[in-house]
């Protein structure tokens, strides 16, 4: 038990994101309502985004904006003073893309509702099956 606590403290962020990811994955697999499935997909995406952002973190570092802007170009910059900008760049675009793909998914859900008058998966499957 005494071995487990330092591991937990050092890596609790990964554990939290994995739990969040499991919630999203479970909703995508087990929920019957299409909108609930989509919300599960969004929770999944959010956990991945949080995971990436936490990879970029460095203890005691500040945001990746070089202080004193242009004048700093002359003396050397210590990378350990600024957090890793790369995960931020990747997730910055991923957030907006996830919002727009969520919009497309909701549009498909609206179309499904117009066609079958329901969003429950088992009722849609029952109608799709030939009698």
């Amino acid at each position, binding site marked *: 038990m005494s071995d487990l606590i330092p591991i937990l403290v050092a890596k609790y962020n990964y554990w939290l994101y994995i739990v969040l990811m499991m919630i999203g994955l479970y909703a995508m697999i087990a929920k019957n309502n299409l909108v609930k499935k989509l919300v599960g997909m969004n929770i999944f995406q959010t956990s991945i985004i949080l995971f990436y952002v936490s990879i970029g973190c460095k*203890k005691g570092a500040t945001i990746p904006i*070089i202080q004193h802007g242009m004048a700093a170009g002359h003396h050397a910059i210590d990378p350990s003073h*600024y957090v890793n*900008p790369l995960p931020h760049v990747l997730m910055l675009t991923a957030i907006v893309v996830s919002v727009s793909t969520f919009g497309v998914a909701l549009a498909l859900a*609206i179309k499904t509702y117009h066609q079958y008058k329901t969003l429950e998966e088992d009722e849609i499957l029952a109608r799709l099956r030939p009698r």
Partner: protein
Amino acid sequence: MKAAGLIIVLLTGGLLLYATQDFPPWGAPDSPASTHVSPRYLQKATEETAVPNIVTAVLADYRGFDTMFETTVIFCAGIGCFVLLRIFRQKPEDRYYRHIATEITLHIKGGRLPNKSREFERIDTLWTPYDLVIKTVCRILAPFIQLFALYVIAHGHHSPGGGFQGGVILGASIILIAISHNMRTAIARISEKVDNLLMAVGVFIYAGIGAVCVMLGAAFLDYGNLSVILFADEIMARSHGILGVEIGVGITVMAVMISIYNNLASAGKQDEGL
């Protein structure tokens, strides 16, 4: 189904939790992710592009291709929503009008009153009560939100911000008008045709700046050669190129957010909705 799902989820989660043993501790400065490319970006980006915000420099210059196609993905999502949902030929349906002077509500089946009438105003079928405070506050607030959005886009070089964030805030200001008044008021501000044009214009600006670079003899999206037409040195030209690209991204993101909201909230009719 539920039990099988639970087993799969627990198995995946357990394996991932087991795999975290090999991960570096949280916030370690010498973790593998922070030791390969990012020190080079942090040390060189400011002197190579004259942009102190490294996130913006990497987003629009070092990873310019990636961002261009992300913008294209957003554009495609907006077009996809439009194609899936938009209904042009509408059957004549029930509409509600209110006589402004007497506040009598008319329910008209099939036919319709003229859209612009001094005596009558159209109200939504699922009517939300008229609220003076909410409408006035949102109308006063919207220009300031838009001003802040323009600041976020234009000042993205020196402070947290950029095209994606500013575009979302711009879109949110129009969506705020649509929520607080009604959808027709928001569409009167920025019509569907203009909005769909702006979606394409943003991507066009982005790809156009890349094409101008090619015409000036450099690689696609290599802004250094823009110094010939911008009357600036090569480093400052990169900074200006990044600004132009961010403006393109902002326009596309704004237009796509508004278009997706309008199409989703009205299920493609674009006349009334939440």
